[in-house]
């Protein structure tokens, strides 16, 4: 007998009721039960970060969280970043700076960086800090240069927008 649990969670503002096995990871639940296949699994042991999603405002490795732990939570995945057909500024910056090649690690980086921006002042982002942030996840294609540039450019643009508003 599988140890099943009924849970409710929000993903990118949409609510889902489902029954999951206790040991099922949040990543598998998002991907295979709910169809959010943009969250990718690269190692399933918490190192590569391709499965990074934002769980109640905190970036987590969805391979290290059980689905049942997300009961009642709000999850943001890569599918929730764009505004309709319009890429977010960070997504656009990734394309502009050639910050992705195969694109497999990209959703994890995007969610990691969005979570950082949500809690930090973009002015505080030096290149060194950007590298430290990005070093949380693995990319095998780009050598990270484009990713670091995309993060810095987005931080600058967001700071400029904020300065113009105030």
């Amino acid at each position, binding site marked *: 007998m599988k140890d099943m649990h009924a849970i409710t969670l929000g993903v990118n503002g949409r609510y889902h009721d489902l029954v999951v096995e206790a*040991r099922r990871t949040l990543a598998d639940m998002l991907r295979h039960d709910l169809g959010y296949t943009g969250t*990718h699994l690269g190692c399933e042991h918490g190192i590569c970060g391709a499965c990074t999603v934002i769980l109640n405002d905190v970036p987590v490795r969805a391979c290290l969280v059980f689905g049942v732990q997300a009961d009642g939570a709000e999850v943001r995945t890569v599918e929730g970043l764009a505004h309709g057909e319009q890429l977010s500024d960070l997504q656009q910056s990734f394309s502009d700076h050639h910050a992705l090649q195969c*694109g497999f690690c990209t959703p994890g980086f995007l969610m990691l960086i969005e979570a950082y921006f949500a809690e930090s002042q973009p002015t505080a982002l030096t290149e060194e800090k950007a590298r430290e942030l990005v070093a949380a996840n693995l990319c*095998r294609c780009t050598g990270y240069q484009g*990713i670091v540039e995309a993060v810095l450019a987005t931080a600058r643009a967001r700071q400029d927008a904020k300065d113009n508003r105030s």
Partner: protein
Amino acid sequence: MSVIGARLPRKEDPRLLRGRGRFGDDISAPGQLWARIVRSPSAHGQVRGLDVTEAAKAPGITNVITAKDLPPGLVIPVRLAVGSADLSPYLQPVLAADTVRYVGEPLAVVLGDDPYRCEDAAELVDIDIADLPPVIDAVSARDNENTAAELTLGYGDTGAAFASARHVVSIELAIGRHTGVPLEPRCLLAVPGPGNTDRGELDIFGMTKVPVFNRDLLAGMLGLDETLIHVHAIDAGGGFGIRGEFYPEDFLIPWLALRLGRPVKWAEDRAEHLMAANHSRQQHHRIAAAFDDDGRITGLRDDIVHDNGAYCRTHGVAVPELTVAMLPGPYRIPAYRGRVRVVLTNKTPCGTYRAPGRFEGTSAREHLLDVAATQLGIDPIQLRERNLLTKDDMPHHRHITTLGTDLVLDTGDYPALLAAAVKEAKRLGYRDLAPDRPRPQPRGFGLAMFVEKSGLGPQETADVTVSKSGTVHVFSGGTSVGQGIETVLTQIAADALGVDPHVVRVVAGDTAAQPFGAGSWASRSTVVGGTAVHQAATAVRERAVQLAARMLETAEADLEVRDGSIGVRGDPNARVTLAAVARAAEPAGGYLAAGEPAGLSARRRFEVARMTYPYGVHAAVVEVDAGTGRVRVLRYLVAYEVGRAINPMLVEGQLIGGVAQGIGGALFEEFSYDDAGQPQAITFIEYRMPTAAEIPPVDVLLAQDAPSPGNPLGVMGAGEGGVNAVGAAVANAVRDALGLAGGIGQLPLTPARVRTLAGAAEGAA
């Protein structure tokens, strides 16, 4: 301005950025079973028993199969046969029956409706293996039974060259076992057709590299007509040589789907990937060069032991062959002999990893040159300048064949690129970062030069079709592994057809859409695949002009093609769009002559007899902590001649990404084994791929001064020039930092090894 050469944003980006890419495990089929492979826990042994009773009874399990259930005698054949060696005794069975030869070798497959339960049940398979002594170290394995092949390439009289040499310099260098490790693990989904399973229709998702080859091979093994198998084009999370070769799973999953009449899916986990997918690189070089009084090379020889792991897989002995074939690099070498012994060990079998044979050979040759420069009292850059082939030497016949082609260096100005790289490194202040004066954490500068190869034939086929909406469809035989093939082929097609890149749509690697594709590997897609697209698009353009002349009732010579339409020169009102021409080419379009086939499309095949040879220079500045043994790469420069860049942004991306992988192989990544043959790196904790913290800013000097004479676009490949010389440049920089008299001996330069080297240097001082 032509769209060729533009930094066009990638066509692939929007879907990948939105999480709408379609990778292997993103695709499922109704009613699918999941497969879990049961693998050998032993490096070498006799299989005494394999009891699947308990596993088969486990909840949710539908089937467990072992070698006994398979058609007899199935092995994975060699795709890339070179030389005359008979490798048939060394091929890998699909499932091991009597003997296991490495940890991770497939023994059984468990199938069920839930991957978690399959994994549980796989643990219940009772494996009884009588261990045999494993062979772990290829160099000390003197036993001829372990030698699968021996190859020697060369020319000239090396014996005489070394006998009469003024100086002979030699080093030993071991290259560590590492591999591509794409971030997406392998995945396969096989879906049988709706008819009777004996009709054999199969849809397959996840064979991304050489889909037509794999389709044909699979059809042969299954006894099916190859056109009944449809390999679909999907995204792949990185290629790097390892992905898409025909592995045991590539037979098992489709075979099970047909046999059971249900879709079967297999998604490997990371531990499986690290012990079951191809390893690469592990070689031991004993390399020596003979010099005359002026520091000119008179002879070069290298004796190599190539550790191929437990079997010869799809690459056969192509990697060792490439190693010795490409070893002379960009230099004038009157006499050369490269000998390589291919040794089988009880470790994961090997295949290619980006710049196969060249990362290894360049490391050995370029490190030897730096040691020689010290011993001869010549500056390392001057020593290279003195020995480089020059523009006047081109074309230079090496009198070596590799991968069945003559090695002819047909274009380039090596000294000019070296001078440009040295100047650029100086301009960027590399020398100031690594001053001569001693520091507590010494810094060093290292440089290495190399010749790459790209554009391997023999052919690629492309179809270009204009549909009634005016969309230009490109059906290429290449596959999308992250390199940006859709963007590059779009640019080539848009340029040839005079259309906006937005109207071009590329399908890469679908066997139904392009049944004659040769795949994406060996840095061939832009060179061979791109040229095929160029030719097909050019043919479509000519056909469109022919039809437009009929529509506009004018002569073809009076027409011009511009911005997606064809018009009479000087008459802005007399124009037809490409979409209108496509409609005119419909069966009832009204403009087809009797007997002409309908449609605005063309298929072209580009054949090449020889490869193209791009080349480059790498330079590194490193800082060594002699206390901890940590090496930090502070700056890295790649100067690379690509002939012509279709999209410079993508070329730079290839080079920078390659550098990061090279730094991994030079400093961090290594598949080590214990004495019992147990792999010591089966997670990302032990297999240490570099993060952003270990990769420095990379400077790129992209040269387009030597267009390839071998194709109409003048292009050469860019996939492997970033990784080729990193081992060499980093080794040279660390040697410089530590002030070593000899070589560094071994890559990767792990902290323990660097501490040993630093201690030895200290002792000698």
